[in-house]
């Protein structure tokens, strides 16, 4: 898994996750999520365009990120899902929050 995080001037955090996010690599992501949450970001943008494969453990971590940022009053935007990760998100009905090809987890629509 490739993981990179950057924080903009307004506190917006950009988290890019690439490669394979699974039960082995999710530990690294969960640690990064804790670091991100410690800053109480107003918005987290998750770039999944380089994510090749995700399993249920990885999905769980992303859902956790979504819930916890929102619980802090922030917003989560996920984008770039394709291929296997997109199929998994659709199967697990997480595409309920898709808007215009992007997952905007803070702004659910029908």
């Amino acid at each position: 898994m490739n993981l990179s995080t950057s924080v903009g001037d307004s506190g917006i955090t950009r988290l890019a996750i690439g490669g394979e996010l699974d039960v082995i690599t999710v530990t690294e992501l969960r640690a990064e999520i804790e670091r991100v949450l410690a800053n109480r970001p107003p918005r987290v943008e998750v770039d999944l365009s380089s994510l090749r494969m995700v399993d249920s453990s990885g999905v769980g971590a992303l859902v956790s990120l979504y819930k916890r940022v929102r619980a802090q009053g922030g917003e989560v935007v996920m984008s770039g899902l394709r291929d296997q990760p997109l199929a998994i998100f659709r199967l697990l009905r997480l595409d309920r929050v898709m808007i215009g090809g992007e997952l905007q987890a803070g702004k659910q629509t029908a």
Partner: protein
Amino acid sequence: MLDRLQHRDHTLRSVSQACKLVSDRVESPEWKEFRLQVVSAVSEAFNNIVLHGYEGREDGVIEVEIRTGPDHIDVELRDWGASFDPNKIPQPDFDSLPESGLGMYIIRAFMSMRYHPGKKGRPNVLVLSKALEGPAPSRGKT
């Protein structure tokens, strides 16, 4: 325990390669979806055996047998860990955006599943099956 999951990658590569044997429609959208679903389901099944079946154990054996035919694949996983009752695993409550309990749902959504719990030294046997569907004719290899 997670170290053992590295063996999963060898299994998944083998399963992915085996998917190429079921059809001459390789790289078609239907086949790509077929392989995606088979690999995802087997990955979840392997994880479940290591994390739950062999929970608390330092080592364990998983035998994997892959059978292919025209437009069809069976992946059989045998283990000697704790067995489970598939009928007692609840469906996820999607309205609550669950963070766990999703693996079995993925397996069942993507493949047909038969499970035989082991008894008297015999292994638990999980057979995952899937047919490649689609309009184009196929010449599967055997």
